[in-house]
């Protein structure tokens, strides 16, 4: 090491010294071998930056003296990382540059080849490619990570065989789905460049276009003509971009206009000191007419510029060496090609402006009077061919006799500068459409046109060879005819479609304008004119507005009807909800009320059996005879006359008696209004239950409360298990045994409470016997007291279901207990 060298200069020298380099890589944290004690991390960072520089210098100067140490650095820093994910390699600018060098000078980079082989990059890339190919075949939506991975893959393959459908898929994701990917700006720039070339290919572009990609976090600040002014984030669609290109073609139709625009934009960018522009020359179908295609893209890595300037400041010797060597090479090359140039006047063609020349040119040109930048179109062919070799492959071209040999040679390599040839147009277009699943009508229309005409024509013999002007015009003519025909035939349908929504109409209109532009720039003015006329006729704005007005009017009417109907439905819903709530509340309220009273009335009193059933030999013990304390019940309602209970059933209620048979239909035993009502005795029956036939009424509730459970007596088994009814009064407890159940029409028959004669009573009993559905052996005579439980059925309003029981036992409460 020499005294007075800066740290960076020292490091540069270290690069020349493998031993020192090793020392550096194995250095302790203090880096004590250097003059001052910077951290290892610092040097490692610097080391990485220097790696970039060395690669850059090698690329610039074709001087490979730095190569061995570069490979070592790469191996040290990246090999492990690369093994994990080979694609990370491509996120490093130095690595990408190395790869470029590798392609240019394969023999010089044998160690690097080994490096690449070690990381199995190719295999990994193939695997990735196969994987995504499968995913896309399945139409599976990729996640962010996969998309990024896919883009990496595409970048790796960009100089080999271009998988366009992958690209299209990415475009679709980014533009159509508005999905933001966490991609580096370089990736976005690359992607965008692909997009431009791809779209130009689709449009069969043959004119000047000026496209600039800006490096931004939001990469596509790309809205109409004001691409640099409006920095708001927009999300353009694929159609939007195509339209934009069409617009640009209009805008830059005149060359001067274009030049002026390009110059202004260039100056504007330059003044921002943020971007440098590398110009890549493209091709033009009308090359011979000096109409040219210029695509400005590929933002130069800003950190590289900064690094170079940093060199200028901190390592001026190295910087001067780089510059001088580079300039010397350039000048030599130019002089060799153009002997007329001299030191005071050098004609520098665009071909001569390689990436780095442009990068350095502002400074160089300013400080070197012999350099005069003069744009000439001569010599661009070579550049174009190079570019095509880089971007396009497998062109198999057949030309007709009308093409001159010279032109044929040119076309052979350059006619369509992008990855697409016209022969592939339809195929690619359809493929593009396939990645846009929600096709609107317009897309389907285009697809149909493309499929029916382009594919057919192309398949007929044009496939795999470049279409000449005449062929192209023929196809376009058919295309135009077909479109016109289609529009005429479908005009009504289209109008109907358009009438749905003005937005749809606009979209449709824009889309067709795009098509119109596409057709117009192919090069047939007449066709252009007729297409335009046809389209404008179809897409008459006035007509569309009239339709729209009508639609809006209909919409308003429909909206009013909608609101009215909706209001009515809301009203019905609210009322029914309220009623439902009320019913549920009433159900609950009744159950709660009866539940409470059932828990309150239990009471035991001494009781004596008065009329034992002669057929019975066993009697319940005193405790089993249900009794009720009526005192609290009287306090609630003095119309409570008894209590009814059927063991193991829901029936366990107080019995009330009113002056009619109506009141307790809608009132609980405590006289509170409720749909459940009460169990009540027919007002015509004797109060002491001494009538021949005492009738009790109760609602047939759906929740089986009140007499809702009576319907269970339709089953014999239920009847067998629940035969006995307890009727409890303050003076006595009566036991009844059920013996009959039947339905009858209350509009034709009636219950009889007190019979005029034994005969009529017997007749009544006989009738019951006939109608009953139960098979009871119980003997019933005219001396017996009947208890009839009556409720409605769910079938007919006048139909009643009746359970009839005979009093079999009476348990008398002693008089003194009653009085107590």
């Amino acid at each position, binding site marked *: 090491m020499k005294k007075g060298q800066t740290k960076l200069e020292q490091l540069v020298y270290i690069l020349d010294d493998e031993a020192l380099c090793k020392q550096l890589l194995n250095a302790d944290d203090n880096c004590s071998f250097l003059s001052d004690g910077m951290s290892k991390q610092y040097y490692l960072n610097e080391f990485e930056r220097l790696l970039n520089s060395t690669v850059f210098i090698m690329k610039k100067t074709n001087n490979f003296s730095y190569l061995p140490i570069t490979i070592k650095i790469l191996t040290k820093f990246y090999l492990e990382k690369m093994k994990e994910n080979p694609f990370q390699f491509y996120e490093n600018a130095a690595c990408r540059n190395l790869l470029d060098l590798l392609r240019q000078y394969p023999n010089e980079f044998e160690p690097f080849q080994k490096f690449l082989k070690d990381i199995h990059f190719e295999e990994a890339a193939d695997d990735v490619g196969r994987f995504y190919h499968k995913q896309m075949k399945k139409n599976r939506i990729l996640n962010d990570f996969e998309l990024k991975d896919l883009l990496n893959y595409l970048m790796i393959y960009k100089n080999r065989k271009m998988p366009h459908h992958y690209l299209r898929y990415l475009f679709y994701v980014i533009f159509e789905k508005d999905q933001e990917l966490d991609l580096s700006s370089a990736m976005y720039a690359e992607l965008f460049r692909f997009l431009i070339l791809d779209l130009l290919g689709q449009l069969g572009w043959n004119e000047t276009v000026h496209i600039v990609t800006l490096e931004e976090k939001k990469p596509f600040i790309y809205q109409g003509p004001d691409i640099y002014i409006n920095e708001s984030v927009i999300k353009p669609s694929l159609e939007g971009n195509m339209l934009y290109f069409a617009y640009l073609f209009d805008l830059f139709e005149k060359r001067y206009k274009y030049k002026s625009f390009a110059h202004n934009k260039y100056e504007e960018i330059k003044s921002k000191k943020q971007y440098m522009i590398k110009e890549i020359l493209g091709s033009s179908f009308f090359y011979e007419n000096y109409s040219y295609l210029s695509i400005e893209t590929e933002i130069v890595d800003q950190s590289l510029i900064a690094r170079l300037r940093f060199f200028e400041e901190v390592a001026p010797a190295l910087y001067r060496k780089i510059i001088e060597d580079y300039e010397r090479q350039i000048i030599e090359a130019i002089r060799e090609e153009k002997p007329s140039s001299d030191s005071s006047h050098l004609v520098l063609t665009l071909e001569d402006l390689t990436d780095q020349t442009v990068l350095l040119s502002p400074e160089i040109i300013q400080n070197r009077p012999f350099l005069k930048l003069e744009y000439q179109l001569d010599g661009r062919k070579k550049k174009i061919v190079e570019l095509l070799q880089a971007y396009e492959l497998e062109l198999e071209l057949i030309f007709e006799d009308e093409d001159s040999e010279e032109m044929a040679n040119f076309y052979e390599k350059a006619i369509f500068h992008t990855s697409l040839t016209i022969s592939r147009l339809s195929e690619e277009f359809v493929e593009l459409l396939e990645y846009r699943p929600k096709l609107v009508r317009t897309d389907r229309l285009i697809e149909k046109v493309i499929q029916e005409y382009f594919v057919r024509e192309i398949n007929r013999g044009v496939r795999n060879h470049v279409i000449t002007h005449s062929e192209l015009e023929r196809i376009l003519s058919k295309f135009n005819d077909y479109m016109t025909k289609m529009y005429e035939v479908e005009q009504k349908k289209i109008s109907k479609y358009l009438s749905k929504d003005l937005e749809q109409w606009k979209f449709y209109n824009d889309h067709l304008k795009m098509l119109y532009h596409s057709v117009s720039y192919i090069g047939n003015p007449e066709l252009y004119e007729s297409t335009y006329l046809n389209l404008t006729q179809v897409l008459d704005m006035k007509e569309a507005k009239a339709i729209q007005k009508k639609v809006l009017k209909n919409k308003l009417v429909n909206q009013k009807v909608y609101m009215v109907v909706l209001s009515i439905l809301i009203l019905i819903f609210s009322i029914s909800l309220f009623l439902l709530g009320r019913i549920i509340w009433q159900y609950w309220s009744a159950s709660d009320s009866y539940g409470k009273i059932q828990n309150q009335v239990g009471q035991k009193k001494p009781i004596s059996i008065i009329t034992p059933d002669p057929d019975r030999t066993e009697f319940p013990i005193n405790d089993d005879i249900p009794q009720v304390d009526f005192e609290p019940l009287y306090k609630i309602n003095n119309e409570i006359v008894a209590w009814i209970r059927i063991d193991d059933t829901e029936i366990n209620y107080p019995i009330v008696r009113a002056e009619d048979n109506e009141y307790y239909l809608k009132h609980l035993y405590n006289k509170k209004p409720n749909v459940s009502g009460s169990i009540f005795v027919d007002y015509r029956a004797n109060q002491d239950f001494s009538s021949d036939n005492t009738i009790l009424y109760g609602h*047939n509730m759906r929740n089986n409360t009140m007499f809702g459970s009576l319907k269970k007596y339709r089953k014999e088994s239920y009847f067998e298990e629940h035969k006995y009814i307890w009727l409890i009064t303050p003076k006595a407890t009566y036991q009844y045994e059920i013996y009959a159940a039947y339905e009858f029409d209350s509009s034709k028959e009636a219950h009889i409470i007190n019979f005029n004669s034994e005969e009529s009573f017997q007749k009544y009993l006989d009738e019951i016997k006939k109608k009953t559905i139960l098979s009871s052996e119980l003997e019933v005579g005219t001396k017996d007291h009947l208890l009839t439980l009556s409720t409605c059925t769910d079938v007919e309003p006048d139909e009643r279901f009746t359970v009839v029981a005979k009093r079999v036992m009476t348990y008398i409460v002693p008089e003194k207990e009653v009085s107590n």
Partner: protein
Amino acid sequence: MKKTLKTMSFFAIAFCSLWLGVASASAANFKIDVINGQDGSGINYGTITTTKNSCTVTPADSSSSNIITIKSGQQLYVEVNPGCTQTFQVTVNEGYEIDTVLVDRQYVQPSADGVYTFSNITNANSLLSTDTSDVAHSLCIKYKKKGAPSSPNTGDVAYVLPVAGASLLSLGLMIILIRKNKNVKA
């Protein structure tokens, strides 16, 4: 002084048990309180007739007719001598039928032929008599429209299913309508 007729049930029934009249008393005679039901609408549901006989004291009217007619909505005291027998015939008009019959305030089974006879009237009924009137018997006829149910409607009047159905239906329709409208807007 008569008490007003009380409307009960859904149709055409005079509330016999409360409708007791007061008439001038005569120590030697007994009265039969006859009430023919009506609900105040003026509809003539049926007629009760009785034939004057030697025992019949009142009503003494100037007509030569031997028949006493009690129309729907009317109350009449038929005064008889002790030991008499008095027969009443109930004729129901077309479209109606007898709902209930109260004899001496007791509900009895309606007779098949509509004839009700009080025999050997000798004592005043303490339950029917008032301070000023010795009423021995009472007869009250209540009618109903033919075919009307004889027992109260004890169906579940909480119409759960229709109400729940209406609420679900309206909700469903609302959802369909809103979604359709949303689609139209989209």
